[in-house]
């Protein structure tokens, strides 16, 4: 009943309709996009209706019917064993996503193009293998020999990516204590279910499928819930540069800003130093480290430049991080390193950084 062409244009029409619906919900003062999507739906629906009417302009079905009436056995034996294909549906989805992405988000277009590319390859090879012989199983084997080396790694990567992403969303949405309990319970449940299944004398296929579907369903539901809840704030008292969390484990020292003079820091030269900064002053403050570095241009001219490294502004009792590197020993009179506590750009306390030679 549904021809290949109808599947393609039918899904394209549905995607257009869905996009128009989403656009209606998300946009209040701009309706051009909605009309474009509805136009896509109308055009694709019209073409889809026409191709059904004309049976994809193909004569194969008619010829086969006529031949079957004459010599059914021989025709069945020699006619190509074409398998039902879902690729028109998926291809239409890809085209739709590509078009929607052009309006909404380039990322959606990228996904749409990837789907279209995959569809082209899959559909092409399936079309070829379906006509290779009249033996459907042999044809399926041929198709698999070509496409499995491509499909398995891609699907594996997609599944692995999904699992990692889903786990990350779940774990970000819960705090450490809940995570410990949850994963202990989940692990125990999986162990118990596996033990019960292992004890069964006979494992039926529907049972296994049922258990797997329930497991995957719960996992997907948990991931969706995690996405909906969003990440809990694990670092509520910690601000600073983006490497803060990673560097926190490698702190060389801690500096507490109190408004009074800062202690002398002794650090090695030529290595990246991470300092944990705590603001105990009432005012929002930042720690600024003033370094020196020799920069040599393409023509070989060297110049001494002052570099500033900052923790970012920290409210009272907040922690931050400052990362810096001092290239040369501070014995050199041109390489005097200092650091200061600043409040609204004013220096309220300062200290020396000593780099031994």
């Amino acid at each position, binding site marked *: 009943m549904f021809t290949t062409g109808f599947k393609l244009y039918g899904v394209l029409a549905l995607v257009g309709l869905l996009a128009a619906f989403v656009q209606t919900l998300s946009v209040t003062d701009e309706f051009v996009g909605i009309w474009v999507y509805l136009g896509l739906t109308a055009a694709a629906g019209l073409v889809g209706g026409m191709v059904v009417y004309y049976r994809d302009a193909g004569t194969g079905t008619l010829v086969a019917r006529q031949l079957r009436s004459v010599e059914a056995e021989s025709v069945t034996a020699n006619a190509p064993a074409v398998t039902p294909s879902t690729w028109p549906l998926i291809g239409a989805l890809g085209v739709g996503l590509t078009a929607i992405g052009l309006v909404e988000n380039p990322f959606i277009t990228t996904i749409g193009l990837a789907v279209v590319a995959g569809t082209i390859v899959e559909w092409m090879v399936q079309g070829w293998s379906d006509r290779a012989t009249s033996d459907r199983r042999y044809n399926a084997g041929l198709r698999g020999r070509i496409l499995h080396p491509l499909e398995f790694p891609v699907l594996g990567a997609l599944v692995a990516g999904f699992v990692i992403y889903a786990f990350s969303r779940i774990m970000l949405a819960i705090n450490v204590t809940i995570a410990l309990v949850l994963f202990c319970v989940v692990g125990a449940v999986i162990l118990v279910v596996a033990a019960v299944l292992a004890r069964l004398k006979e494992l039926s296929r529907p049972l296994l499928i049922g258990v797997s579907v329930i497991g995957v369903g719960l996992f997907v539901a948990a991931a969706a819930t995690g996405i909906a809840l969003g990440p809990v704030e694990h670092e509520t008292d910690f601000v600073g540069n983006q490497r803060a969390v990673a560097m926190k484990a*490698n*702190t*060389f020292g801690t500096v507490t800003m109190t408004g009074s003079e800062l202690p002398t820091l*002794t650090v*090695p*030269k*030529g*290595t*990246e130093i*991470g300092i944990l900064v705590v603001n105990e002053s009432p005012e929002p403050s930042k720690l600024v480290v003033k370094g020196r570095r*020799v920069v*040599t241009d393409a023509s070989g001219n*060297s110049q001494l430049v002052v570099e500033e490294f900052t923790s970012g502004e920290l409210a009272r009792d907040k922690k931050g991080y400052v990362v810096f590197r001092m*290239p*040369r*020993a501070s*014995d*050199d*009179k041109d390489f005097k390193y200092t650091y200061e506590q600043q409040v609204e750009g004013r220096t309220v306390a300062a200290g020396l950084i*000593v780099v*031994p*030679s």
Partner: protein
Amino acid sequence: MSNRGRRAVAGAAIAAGLVLLAGCGDSSPLDTWNPKGVDAQKIHDLQWWVFAIAGIVGIVVFAVVAVAVVKFRDRGDDRLPKQVHGAPKLEVAWTIAPAVLLAGIAVPTLAAVFDLTKQDDPGFEITVIGQQWWWEYQYRGSYNGQSLDGIVTSGEMVIPAGVRVPLRTTSRDVIHSWWVPALNGKRDAVPNRFHDWNIQAFEPGDHLGWCTEFCGLSHANMRAHAVALTPENFVAWAKNQQKPAAKPTDPTALQGMGVFAAQCARCHTVKGLTQTVKDPTTGVETEQPVIAAPDQQLVSGAAPSLTHLMSRTSFAGAIYDLKKPGCTNDPAYDQAYPTGTAGNCLNRADMESWLRNAPEMKPMYAQLNDDKKYRGMPALGLSEQQIDLLVAYLVTLK
């Protein structure tokens, strides 16, 4: 057994015997079964326990395999052994037994791992910095009232015996790993990270170590020494390390100082080194400190400080003896070590060869890279006279 078979068995037995005999050697400074510090002792105690369990398991497995091989060997008839499909009791047993054994190993292992990473606070710490292909040690804090701030040495880490000293390992170029087997396990030195570690020696002594993470051309020539001194000698050593180098009085050494300032001070620091600088406008001559700028010369951005060269026992990444054996074997050497030894103690032959052509003594990338920087020490093209002058100056650096 055929003659060929007998010969093979005899050959294997001789080889195994030689391997066993090799274990009897007493000159093995990297022996992991000879702990000389509290942390190494912990590792040692643990590995005995693990080796004992692993040994028993190994013997049992070999015995079971041997029984199976003999009992179920092909007897030349067509009878098949009894075919068994599932043996729940056996399967449960061989699941539970390894689990119990692994748990038995895991508990003391985890306890040891946590113990090894705990740090004491003796009032000071040492930052261990790896670079191609030598180790630098920087001290922070104080010990027995003696400030250690600003002490930088290389090749040899000096610690007071009996004190568990916190270490922080890092690197200036690639990943290295610092390991002195007699005193503790190994710790990776990773650029831009600080890994905490400890070191303690029961008694005064010199313990050999090595870089154990492949780090380039001369990885095998990147050694380390951990020298434990008595508390009194350690304080004397620290006092000496904080002094700037004295200006030599000997005319030859003074000339050598000039050569050093012109040739070596681009990378190597000697605290207190000065040179006369003439103001181009006024013509007035003043003594100005000579400051090394290894950040402009070397990929790692650092070269060993030579301020107290003669207070060490080795040089060039601790691969060459700095002193003659007659000097270091003298019982008085231990007392002389903290404040540096006299010039006649120097292993002059190796030092001169090093100054003549360092990359020949220790493989290094002697060419400038695209950033116009070296890895390691290049050949400086010094004349024999310059080498003599330099040596005369270097022996004054106590």
